[in-house]
């Protein structure tokens, strides 16, 4: 979820802005200055253009229009074949369209023929017929805005008891934040009572029940996680699989990441994918098949799958690897698999991945990075450690999919409120699924997330979701630059949704990233990144 201010009033620039999210100072003084120069009014319309560049963008728009008028055939090709990227960055979007034209347009933009005198005159046409409004407040200061504004999205529900339940949940959460556990407990009792009068089969009743449970857990069992985090890896995998089947979020994640990885691997013969959470390897058959079909033939594909160790002596990672190898063999893709068992991502060391200097590496993280955000005050935070060794691998691409939510705020009530709205929307979307047992087990999967967000703290709280805007700041600060997902990925994601999902899901483009959400609320965000080379990388580019 992009903070309202930085997405719309100022454009979500990569680079530093929000002072609250990153402990590092802004990397480049220059970037900060140019941010102040963004046209605030266009930002409110969703476009990021520097005031100093307005004239240039206008000229390019003019040239483009002239070119389009002069060659309609090119226009229709532009319309159908061109892949568009990041429309918020108007200057680059216009430039990319201009570069598609076969002939550079020759219309001079600074000079026009005055039709009456036939003399060339300097075009200085940006005058208004009426006096300008004063330009005060048109350029927004980010720091100011991001400190004040915080985004929470809600879809209203109207059943009376539903509303009352929400109010009571908020009151209870507020008591918990204040430490007034006796009042919180009596709130809980009231809510349990109200639940009996509310339809708990769907809607607010259902999700409220899970939040009431999570609050109980917190109040009575403490914040250590207990049984919620104690579920076995095997159980987690089952639930994950049903979540995968019941709704399109994971399919979207896999599909979008694979598309980006495929493009990044174009022209490379030795490729290595590092998957931060293998699970059943659901993401990889599609990539293997796509690589098998690519023009020029498939590369040698290595896959390193990271996953938790199996307690019962089975090597489940290896079993998945064998199945994928079987598939690869059947489509003639040379394939090698390696499993890396680790209970926590921060325990993985780069040497375990055995990356070869000659291969192109893709790092794939589906909802894993947020788990590294819990900080141990004694040492480097895990996220910094991991991002740093990812960089040292010099990956061709890093695909990141994360929940688009602000569930890592320090204040409990804020987190609670945000989670209530987020998971209400997610449950709403799940209503569209009618297939059992996928739906029921998917709900348990989500319920565990809720319980973790609400009832855990410290190292037990691993579901520390943060919105795109924060990830952009964090990843840019760690030396990554965005690779934009384009209109082709968008179109294919839309098609996927039409084929496999109910009405109501929507894909949106967000400043080079794609989000999938329910109606107007984005719930999951996919982005792609590349390490900025600064000469100190361990492997050559």
């Amino acid at each position: 979820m992009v903070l309202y201010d930085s997405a719309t009033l100022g454009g979500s620039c990569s680079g530093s802005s929000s002072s609250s999210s990153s402990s590092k100072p802004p990397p480049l003084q220059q970037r900060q200055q140019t941010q102040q120069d963004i046209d605030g009014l266009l930002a409110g319309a969703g476009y990021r253009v520097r005031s100093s560049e307005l004239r240039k963008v206008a000229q390019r728009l003019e040239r483009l229009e002239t070119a389009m008028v002069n060659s309609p055939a090119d226009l229709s090709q532009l319309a159908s074949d061109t892949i568009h990227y990041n429309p918020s960055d108007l200057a680059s979007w216009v430039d990319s369209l201009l570069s598609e034209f076969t002939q550079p347009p020759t219309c001079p933009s600074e000079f026009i023929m005055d039709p009456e005198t036939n003399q060339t005159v300097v075009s200085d046409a940006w005058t208004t017929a009426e006096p300008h409004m004063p330009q005060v407040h048109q350029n927004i200061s980010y720091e100011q805005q991001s400190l004040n504004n915080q985004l929470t999205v809600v879809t209203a529900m109207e059943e009376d008891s539903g509303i009352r339940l929400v109010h009571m949940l908020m009151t209870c959460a507020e008591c918990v934040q204040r430490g007034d556990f006796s009042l919180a407990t009596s709130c809980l009792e009231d809510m349990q009572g109200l639940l009996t009068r509310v339809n708990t089969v769907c809607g607010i009743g259902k999700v409220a029940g899970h939040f009431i449970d999570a609050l109980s857990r917190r109040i009575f069992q403490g914040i250590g996680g207990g049984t919620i985090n104690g579920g076995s890896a095997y159980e987690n995998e089952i639930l994950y699989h049903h979540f995968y089947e019941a709704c399109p979020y994971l399919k979207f994640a896999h599909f979008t990441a694979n598309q980006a990885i495929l493009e990044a691997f174009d022209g490379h013969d030795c490729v290595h994918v590092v998957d931060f959470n293998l699970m059943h390897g659901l993401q990889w058959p599609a990539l293997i098949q796509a690589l098998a079909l690519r023009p020029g033939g498939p590369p040698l594909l290595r896959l390193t799958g990271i996953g938790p160790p199996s307690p019962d002596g089975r090597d489940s990672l290896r079993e998945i690897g064998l199945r994928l190898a079987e598939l690869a063999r059947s489509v003639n893709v040379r394939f090698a698999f390696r499993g890396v068992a680790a209970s926590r991502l921060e325990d993985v060391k780069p040497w375990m991945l055995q990356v070869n200097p000659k291969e192109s590496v893709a790092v794939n993280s589906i909802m894993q990075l947020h788990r590294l955000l819990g900080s141990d005050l004694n040492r480097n935070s895990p996220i910094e450690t991991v991002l740093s060794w990812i960089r040292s691998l010099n990956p061709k691409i890093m695909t990141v999919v994360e929940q688009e939510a602000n569930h890592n705020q320090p204040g409990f009530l804020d987190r609670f409120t945000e989670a209530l709205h987020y998971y209400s929307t997610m449950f709403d979307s799940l209503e569209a699924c009618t297939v059992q047992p996928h739906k029921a087990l998917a709900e348990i999967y989500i319920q565990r997330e809720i319980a973790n967000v609400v009832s855990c703290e410290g190292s037990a709280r691993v579901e520390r979701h943060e919105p795109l805007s924060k990830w952009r700041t964090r990843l840019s600060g760690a030396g990554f630059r965005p690779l934009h997902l384009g209109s082709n990925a968008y179109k294919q994601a839309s098609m996927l949704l039409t084929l496999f999902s109910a009405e109501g899901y929507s894909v949106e483009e967000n400043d080079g990233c794609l989000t999938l959400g329910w109606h107007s609320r984005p719930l999951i965000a996919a982005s792609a990144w590349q390490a900025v080379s600064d000469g100190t990388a361990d492997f050559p580019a």
Partner: protein
Amino acid sequence: MAGSNEVNLNESKRVVPLNTWVLISNFKLAYNLQRRPDGTFNRDLSEFLDRRVPANINPVDGVFSFDHVDGATGLLNRVYQPSSLNEAQWGMVDLEKPLSTTEIIPVIVFFHGGSFTHSSANSAIYDTFCRRLVSLCKAVVVSVNYRRSPEHRYPCAYDDGWAALKWVKSRTWLQSGKDSNVHVYLAGDSSGGNIAHHVAVRAAEADVEVLGNILLHPMFGGQKRTESEKRLDGKYFVTLHDRDWYWRAYLPEGEDRDHPACNPFGPRGRSLEGLKFPKSLVVVAGLDLIQDWQLAYVEGLKKSGQEVKLLFLEKATIGFYFLPNNNHFYCLMEEIKNFVNPNC
């Protein structure tokens, strides 16, 4: 297209500020890429390019918003309200109490423009516009995400508008005043203005009270070519060619522009005489090529004995209200404010 392209580009540059020119030219360009000559529409590209913003329950500059989706139809309405003076109430939607029991708070049902084809209630330009409406006019705004053409032709947009109006009228939490009524106005720009008119007719026929209509350069037309269309074709961002395309995409197949949806007071239109139709504020931009149709609409209302005020902004182009960087914008907001708060 009338006039050479270069001359036309320079004309439009003279009358709007630079950032406005960039914004509207960008739309023009993007829309050209989306419309196909065979009448089909590249919806994927359109959705990809459209800049969207989510609702925000936390107030920003005194306004908060939230979405409501109708479970049965999937129709989305985005509600914008002024934030409570009591900070403790921020971040929550109170759906149990009316807006006020003493004063009257106007509720403006807003239909965004886009020639029936483009944009959504959550498009950034319209989200921003609705927020400004709330701030400057002291109203609640409900923005309707109606179904668009060519996938959904006439009368879908009107059906959705009517459904939204009924929804708004039946919300107890939108009531205000001592009479505990929802004080509704209909508003829209371009195609939204057209929708507002037709929904108001339906409302009048069903005896559902609408207090006023605000039509911002509403989209009307007709078979014949008017003087303003010929004179201004292509000069200020809009061409007759694209207008024709949008009508062909919206009207039932085989129909022409004298269809009453397009030309309500034309040869196939009807008089509204005797109908309890709301008062209207019709805003016409002097550089809009379809102004003759809008002026004919005003005449049609007058001939039907209906109350109408014309706000003619001589030097305004279409879309002048997207950015608050010109006097037309502030003039418009003042007029709307007075229109919906007649006792202030």
